[in-house]
């Protein structure tokens, strides 16, 4: 596991599309790929479901609640905040 991200840290969801490369199991919704969000809370650490799904050895990863601005994702978005559980493996430092 990497160092814990503090609440308020600005992150970017990796703009990665493993589903275009072959069979995979993904817990990061496609609508968030490349989106900027803010870490709201550390939720704990869990074995990586992307590996567990294939009965492969799974690293334990930090899981965060990350908050996004819906209007930055869809121009016609109606909500005020969108909060999603994301594993650290999908998060990178925001430029």
């Amino acid at each position, binding site marked *: 596991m990497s160092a814990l991200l503090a609440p308020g840290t600005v992150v970017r969801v990796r703009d990665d599309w493993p589903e275009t490369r072959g069979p995979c199991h*993904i*817990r*990061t*919704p496609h*609508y968030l790929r490349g989106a900027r969000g803010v870490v709201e809370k550390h*939720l*704990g650490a*869990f074995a990586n*479901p992307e590996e567990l799904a294939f009965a492969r050895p799974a690293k334990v990863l930090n*899981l965060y609640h990350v908050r996004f601005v*819906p209007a930055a994702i*869809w121009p*016609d*978005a*109606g*909500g*005020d*905040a*969108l*909060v*999603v*559980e*994301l*594993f650290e493996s999908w998060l990178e430092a925001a430029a």
Partner: protein
Amino acid sequence: MSTLLETPSDRLLAAVRQLLTAKGVMTHDEIAERIRITDAASPAQGARMVARAWTDPAYRARMLADGAKAAEEMDIPMRGMPPLGVLEDTAEQHNLVVCTLCSCYPRAVLGYPPFWFKSAAYRARAVRDPRGLLLEFGTVLPAEVKLRVVDSTADYRWMVLPLRPAGTEGWSAAQLAAIVREGDMIGTTFPRLP
């Protein structure tokens, strides 16, 4: 079971159960217990937690800190269940739960999900057009109340702790639990007087 009514999925289920026990993954008793717990779970369980949170501030604090522990405190079986997070509604902010990837749902406290929770329409609209979606449930969110949508994508399960409706002052926890519905804990509706 009558062989006349047996379907391919019945045979598949029987084969999986046989394999689980033959390979020592689970015993027949453990499978039976899990079926019993799953069938017994219903929104009435979550409603008891909500009603107690409305009447017991210390319990409310414990429930917001750790939903699974708070459920166990109410004799709701949580063994083997994912962690349970509780989303607190306030006068300023309302929460709505969706699982856009599949159908993650806090089954231990709410039972089987309603059919629409898994629909592509609900999943797509909850994140993009949540106010329009709420209107279709007859829920008018005041313009000044912020709407926070929680997409349940990983190891947690989420339930909403809604606001206690006006006009319920002096009600017992049992009376309060009786008015809390499934949608009130998903966030599609608000508890209201019968």
